[in-house]
């Protein structure tokens, strides 16, 4: 599993170029999360590509070639933090949910509940979340929504943008 962090121009059409590249080149995206950054002209994406044998370097080069893409980084090759949020709705009382989750380390919070259902969030490692979801399959499962993996490198370095490249004409 590879997590890719990407900065791109916050412009209409930019996201479709990134997504389009994957279908065009025959790669699959497992998850994707996107939102503007502190610089509102830039959007940041984290993508997860699970495919075995996918040529990750080729994918990174193709992404970087897109004019709207400002920076790409393979978080899986860096010392990086990754995190995912899932909101789950189960046909179970709060206490039962508590016991289901007791073997997991991630942060959790009940968001809504009644006698016969519970809505809760979990925040943690993507693999842990997937493990939980597969365990929950045998329960009466109503709904799940996931943020997709988010990630950034540890330490004080950032996925910095190059300065604007000035192209002068005589």
């Amino acid at each position, binding site marked *: 599993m590879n997590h890719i962090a990407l900065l791109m121009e916050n412009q209409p059409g930019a996201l*479709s*170029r990134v997504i389009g590249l994957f279908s065009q080149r025959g790669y699959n995206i497992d998850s994707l999360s996107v939102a503007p950054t502190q610089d509102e002209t830039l959007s940041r994406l984290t993508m997860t590509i699970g495919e075995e044998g996918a040529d990750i370097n080729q994918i990174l080069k193709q992404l*970087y*070639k897109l*004019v709207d*893409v400002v920076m790409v980084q393979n978080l899986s090759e860096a010392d990086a933090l990754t995190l995912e949020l899932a909101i789950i709705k189960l046909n179970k009382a709060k206490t039962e949910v508590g016991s289901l989750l007791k073997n997991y380390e991630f942060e959790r919070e009940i968001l809504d509940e009644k006698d016969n259902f519970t809505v809760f969030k979990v925040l943690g490692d993507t693999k842990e979340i997937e493990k939980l979801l597969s365990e929950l399959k045998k329960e009466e499962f109503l709904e799940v929504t996931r943020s997709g993996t988010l990630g950034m490198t540890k330490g004080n370095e950032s996925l910095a943008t190059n300065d*604007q490249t000035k*192209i*002068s004409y005589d």
Partner: protein
Amino acid sequence: MAKIMTSGGEALIRALADENVDIIFGYPGGAALHIYDAIYQQDRVQHILVRHEQAATHAADGFARATGKPGVCLVTSGPGATNAITGIATAYMDSIPLVVISGQVPNHLIGTDAFQETDMMGISRPIVKHSFLVQKPEEIPVIIKKAFHIATSGRPGPVVIDVPKNLTDPNEKFEYKYPSDLYLRSFALYDEAENSEVKQAVKLLTEAERPVIYAGGGAVNSNAAEEIYEFGKLMGCPVTNTLMGLGVYPASDEQFVGMLGMHGTYEANMVMHEADLIMAIGARFDDRITNNPNKFGLKAKKIHIDSDPSSIDKIIDVDVAMTGNAKKVISQINKELKSVNFDNKKFDPWMKKAMQWRAKHGLNHNMLDQKNPGDIILPQQVVQSAYKATDGKAFVTSDVGQHQMFAAQYYHFNEPRKWINSGGLGTMGFGLPAAMGVKFAFPDETVACITGEGSIQMCIQELSTCGQYGLPIKIINLNNRALGMVKQWQDMQYGGRYSSISYEDSLPDFIKLAESYGHVGMKVEKLSELEAAMEECFALKDKLVFLDVYVDPDEHVYPMLKAGGDMSEMFLSKTEKTFE
């Protein structure tokens, strides 16, 4: 200086002129009418009216390939835009700089399924280097500037600018300023290679025993012919060009072993197979070159120069990767080669081996002299005859199929940008409109379109454009009364079951057709009449001549690589092959 006030439409055309564009190819329609009105009111940019938007893109493409300058076309929304798609994809696959301006329905109608609305940004997305949807008329000059920069720099490619009609409104004026600088965030361009890479490459080159230089379209795009010739002479080893690279190394040079790949020469493919060092310059190891990539160049180390890092290690892993401009990188290598102690005489036996392969199974260049029973014309002979009549100096465009391969094999290009064909996408219908673009760029040069009766009918309407603008193109139609390349594959792989390749009874009378557009038509059916007809065709300087040559309908293109094999596994004729 007084302020220049323009509308969006006027700004668009003025910006093109400021970008030194003097000719654009297009077709008007509702969403583009404000722009056409702006064209009418100026004289810096000439508009050429084609008969179909596909032809506009191919003509702009032909212009770009011949000149190295970006080609420009202008189409309307909806069908105008979709008709341009094939031409945009053609340019994209061959890395040709094109700026395609499409009209769009007014902003407030976008998304409503308005008349002649189509999502041009979406439809063209996978086949453009970049695209712009104009959002404010004031940004038109900057977008034009960016579009030309993106289309022409690095690995060139087509750029689409989609312009909603209301943003070109003649009543809404703003101050026109053409930008002198522009800002593109993180727009990476690769120029020279690292010194360490140059040294490493030269080490491999001088240590090799059997090197080959393999140059493609990227070498043409970066105008590297002179540097590659010097490099070839410094190395004294065999040189081969891809279909897209023909002419970048002179075909008449003794080190040139011809085109390589699926229909490459026996000697070029053998050289590639046996080489211990493959030096790829602006070539991308595509499947028509490598045959089975798992069996490609197993004995060779590889050096790859390309302006696009994503082309490197895509199909074939290489030992030295040099991302940069081929012209500059080869200069660096030449300089380094000259500074090291190295005698290229050591490649003489290898060069001799290549010549032995040529002597054994090289292309048959004596066909014109051979007695041909029944006076049947072989298609190769037509190309040879055209070569002779033009002294090898014409611009030659082609369509796609057998005639394209015969032209590539038998018209020996000594200069780059003279051979103009759709290599990557393989677009039938490309040849005639591309020839128009070339002729506009070089009105005093001879421009021939070597085509077939299948391909020419895909854009035949452009005979009308040629009449309107007086373009004396020479159309050499290798008429074998069938879709020849498809037929060849059906012969070789489908037991001769000729599915949907024949239209013998319904072919037009090309002579009458040409004449109906005001051109000259000539028909040749006998070999004994070929040379005189060819001479006459090219002697008619001011006329478009449609030379319809009836050729042997059963001829195949050889050599042909065996599917899934390595580069030494070739069919050499209907009865000979190099493998068991």
